[in-house]
């Protein structure tokens, strides 16, 4: 009997509380919790475990939605583009011919290079990296950042700081990784800064994303010491050998504009990235870390 009374009383209290709890109080309590979370991230950085748990739930759905979307997209484009594809096929066939010819020529010079390298006992400068293909499954919900999630993770031996490329150019770097997902920060993100160099002269510069240039598809470079004014429009920019995270010699893009800084010592300008950021669907993750390579 007494127990029943207590229960009843508690229920009454709870109801009372629910009615008494005004929206302002609720707002203040939850705001304090949010501010606490923010303080937590500022002191310890983003807690990986929370993200792991949420993504564990969300990634399978994103994967599914994406598969359906791709299927529908490929159907639609399949019906639409038959003629365009035929024309493209012709063009590509012609290109295959050209490339085969070029390939034979290059393989000849390659064998010569091998011979000479052996002669001089040189190591290969750019080793073949092992790569793994992954699909982009989701993007940052806001429009301020250029981060995306791919559908491969620790299961496929992907680790933080691995470089991501697509159609020949650098795309970005893995910043977080879970069992079956990894999030990638692209080089066009406003917060991205990477150390780069001019391919021909090895003069270093800094390449940084700029949200303000997003629609023109360009990114910035700055701090370039270019004493002979070698850099002009079309100069190739690659990742530098002094970068701690990016492997050496990955193609970033080509210079589009260049000008002297007001200090007359350095130059800066814009770059057109080699990778096509407008439609990234599949990317390649290079399964090699710069740090471990140097340590070993």
């Amino acid at each position, binding site marked *: 009997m007494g127990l029943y009374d207590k229960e009843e009383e508690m229920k009454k209290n709870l109801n009372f509380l629910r009615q008494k709890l005004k929206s302002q109080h609720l707002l203040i309590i939850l*705001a304090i919790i*949010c501010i606490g979370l923010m303080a937590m991230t500022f002191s310890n950085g983003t807690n990986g475990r929370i993200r792991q748990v949420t993504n564990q739930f*969300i990634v399978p759905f994103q994967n599914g939605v994406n598969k359906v979307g791709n299927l529908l997209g490929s159907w639609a484009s399949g019906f639409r583009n038959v003629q365009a594809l035929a024309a493209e096929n012709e063009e590509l066939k012609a290109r295959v011919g050209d490339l085969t010819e070029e390939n034979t020529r290059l393989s000849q010079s390659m064998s010569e290079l091998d011979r000479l390298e052996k002669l001089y006992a040189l190591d290969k400068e750019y080793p073949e990296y092992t790569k793994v293909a992954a699909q982009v499954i989701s993007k*940052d919900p806001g*429009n301020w950042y250029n981060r995306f999630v791919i559908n491969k993770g620790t299961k496929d031996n992907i680790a933080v700081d691995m470089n991501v490329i697509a159609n020949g150019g650098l795309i970005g770097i893995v910043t977080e990784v879970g069992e079956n997902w990894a999030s990638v920060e692209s080089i066009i993100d406003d917060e991205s800064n990477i150390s780069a160099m001019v391919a021909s002269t090895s003069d270093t510069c800094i390449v940084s994303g700029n949200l*303000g240039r997003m629609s023109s598809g360009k990114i910035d470079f700055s701090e370039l010491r270019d004493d002979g004014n070698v850099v002009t429009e079309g100069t190739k920019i690659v990742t530098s050998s002094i970068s701690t995270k990016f492997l050496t010699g990955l193609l970033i893009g080509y210079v589009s504009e260049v000008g002297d800084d007001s200090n007359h010592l350095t130059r800066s300008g814009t770059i057109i990235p080699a990778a096509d950021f407008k439609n*990234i669907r599949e990317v390649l993750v290079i399964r090699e870390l710069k740090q471990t390579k140097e340590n070993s």
Partner: protein
Amino acid sequence: MIRKIIIFILIVACCILQTTVFSLQSVTSVSPNLMIIITISIAFMQGKKEGILTGLISGLLIDFTYGSVYGFYGLLYMLVGYASGFFCQVYFDNDVKMPLILATVSDILCNFVVYVVFFLLRGRLAFAHFLMEIIIPEAVYTALMTLILYRLFYVINHALVNNQKKGRQSLWIKD
């Protein structure tokens, strides 16, 4: 209870749609802000308390999947939900004008706050550029999506509330 679970599922669905279907058209394009739409819709129909909770859950979902500072979007969207809740008093059936204005205004305000906190403080001063490239396109896109989604949320919410009221009346408890 059922209503709360369904609203939660709707929030998660919005989050998934926003990160996949609407964004993947191209990684550099602008996508609409579905999370703001659901927050202001629920707040407008159900009042401040539910607005606060919907905003908090939507915001935290963004924080936990993509955000760089946990709790930032949670707080921002919660305030949006609370503010939209004030307009619950002028809530008329199936009127889309008010949520349209609310969604557009709150989307612009939220993006302005994001700009100030994450960009202006890092020395990105070209506000006009950001306004034209991101804030305005997103606001327009969000407004268009509100026209469609608000109707949908209205129908779902209406059905659920009616269901709940019927249950209450059968027990002779006044609402």
